[in-house]
């Protein structure tokens, strides 16, 4: 029995010792360090990190002598974190969709601004809010939307040299099984339904009209996805021919050589209002409010319109050519949509995607 014992001598012992050491370092070593008072943790949709870092953060960091630390989280994930950490958030500032923000405001999880034309109590006064258009306010208890991105038709130029130009045209039988739309796992799901309801009946809350319109489009729908990027990829590959997407992403795909184009539908592109909110109880509240105020300044608003091609919240900034004007967008009552969301999700599940 001496043969097998020779070669492995000491190696297992050293491996175990190294493992124990690593276990200690692993659990203990990284715990050190309290939150840095000179850091501002900003939750931001993953695809917008670069915008925050390059367009918005540098001027603010230079003035306040702090560092902005972005955390990439989709709006729904941000909202889940704020709910779980109720009143004791690890995120100082949110860059979040208005729909999720309206729900958080209803649960008193956001710092409410004063002077909200939609009413409700306010505790935080931000000077720059005086210059914000009334249409940007969407909910009591929440800051107005800092800006709105525009959702239009992102399509495959090889398959659709002459793309559908209206929401109505999405029911064209030539598109059979070629649309990539969104279910309620995406912010765009409820917005699509609201748009169809509004166009069919004039009222985005009239879901009967919206579901009837959706039923006409249904044979063309390849899938109701949850991920915008995945839908864009399907269109770039030619698996799907059309989805709802951002002009900036269409432009990037086209520049990278993919057969992708974007048009604004005749009835208007969807406004996806979004922007800065401050969760209640932020440990760096003063700095967070300063950042929120900065995002409504003329400087930041011009950056949003000029560099990010988003519809601004102020009317006194230049809007470059090619960016839809706020009044041309399909805008919805985000509070009503938030209230209806769970009900619509159940109905969507039962009528559109029966098991």
């Amino acid at each position, binding site marked *: *029995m001496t*043969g*097998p*014992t020779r*070669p*492995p*001598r000491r190696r*297992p*012992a050293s*491996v*175990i010792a*190294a*493992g*124990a050491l*690593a*276990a200690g*370092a*692993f*659990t203990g*070593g*990284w*715990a*050190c*360090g*309290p*939150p840095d008072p000179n*850091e501002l*943790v900003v939750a931001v949709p*993953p*695809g*917008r*990190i*670069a915008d925050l870092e390059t367009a918005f953060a540098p001027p603010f960091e230079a003035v306040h002598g702090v560092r902005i*630390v*972005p*955390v*990439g*989280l*989709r709006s729904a*994930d941000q909202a*889940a*974190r704020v709910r*779980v*950490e*109720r*009143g*004791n958030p*690890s995120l100082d500032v949110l860059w979040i969709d208005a729909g999720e923000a309206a729900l958080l405001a209803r649960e008193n999880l956001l710092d409410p601004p004063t002077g909200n034309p939609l009413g409700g109590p306010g505790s935080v006064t931000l000077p720059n809010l005086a210059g914000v258009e009334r249409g940007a306010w969407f909910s009591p208890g929440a800051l107005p939307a800092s800006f709105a991105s525009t959702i239009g038709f992102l399509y495959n130029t090889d398959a659709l040299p002459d793309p559908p130009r209206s929401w109505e045209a999405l029911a064209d039988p030539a598109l059979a099984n070629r649309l990539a739309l969104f279910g309620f796992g995406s912010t765009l799901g409820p917005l699509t339904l609201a748009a169809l309801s509004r166009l069919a009946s004039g009222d985005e809350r009239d879901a009967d009209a919206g579901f009837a319109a959706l039923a006409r489009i249904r044979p063309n729908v390849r899938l109701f996805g949850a991920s*915008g*990027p995945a839908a*864009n*990829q399907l269109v*770039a*590959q030619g698996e799907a021919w059309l989805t709802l997407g951002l002009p900036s*992403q269409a432009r990037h*795909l086209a520049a*990278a*050589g*993919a*057969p992708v184009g974007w048009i604004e539908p005749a009835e208007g592109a969807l406004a996806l209002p979004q922007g800065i909110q401050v969760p209640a109880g932020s440990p760096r509240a003063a700095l967070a409010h300063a950042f929120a105020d900065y995002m409504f300044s003329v400087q930041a608003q011009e950056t949003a319109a000029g560099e990010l091609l988003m519809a601004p919240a102020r009317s006194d900034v230049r809007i470059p050519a090619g960016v839809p004007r706020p009044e041309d967008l399909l805008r919805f009552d985000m509070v009503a949509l938030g209230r209806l969301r769970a009900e619509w999700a159940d109905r969507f599940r039962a009528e559109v995607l029966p098991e």
Partner: protein
Amino acid sequence: MVAALRVLAALAYLVLLAAPLAVILYAFSPTAAFEIPPSGLSLRWFAALTDQPRLISGLVTSLWLGFGAAAAALACGIPAALALSRGSLPGRNIVLAVLLSPLSLPGLVLGLGILTTASAFAAAGGPALVGTFLPLGAAHLLITIPWVTRSVAASLESAAPELEEQARSLGAGPLTTLFLVTLPTARPGIVAGAVSAFVISFGNFALSLFLASGRTVTLPVAIFEAVDRYQDPTVAAISTVTILVTAAAAVVADRFAGVMQLRGPARRRERGRAGSAP
């Protein structure tokens, strides 16, 4: 029989490698369009990686997290496997199920649960843990320990315990037996568990997402961010680089320590002789 074995193995490799190979091919595509056969080859997406510091730092973070989690999981998992497979432990199967069942908790649920715990801890006056590596590391440890425990336990179960009894009867102490007989015997399971633990931690997304802060951006999170912004082959390029870097690290480790060889050739022959001796 051997032919059938080969055919099935080839099919297995096809299933395993089809998707990764398509991604690697896409990484060299001259445009964002995927073409079969490719219209040309280009390195432009690899060059574009220099503009993506988060992807590069994410790769480094994930490698450290993966190695740390695997090492810590070995330290916790090997003793547990010994307790479970040597001697008669009452309720052994239940203990094993308790250790393994957290694997079935969806990352979303576990992530939110750990976040709730850390948040309550901070609300009760404790230090703020969210944003540090502690909850993330602990969560990764939780999901890697089962892989080590189960693999090592399986290895110990497959091995004849008689070998250890013989060692003991020849006068070896318990520790000597452990290090010179039992653990070498379990080596295939230890290696399999360590490799599994590493890749599980390396690839975990959901936990990293919910426990993420600005300082703890892992590679899967950075990839998610990159995909969310632009859908071009940049992500395919970083994935290709990841495989190359990790493979190079594995080859180096293999050269020096033989970690990938579940059992080295020299020792195999010796143990073969030892096994036939009794």
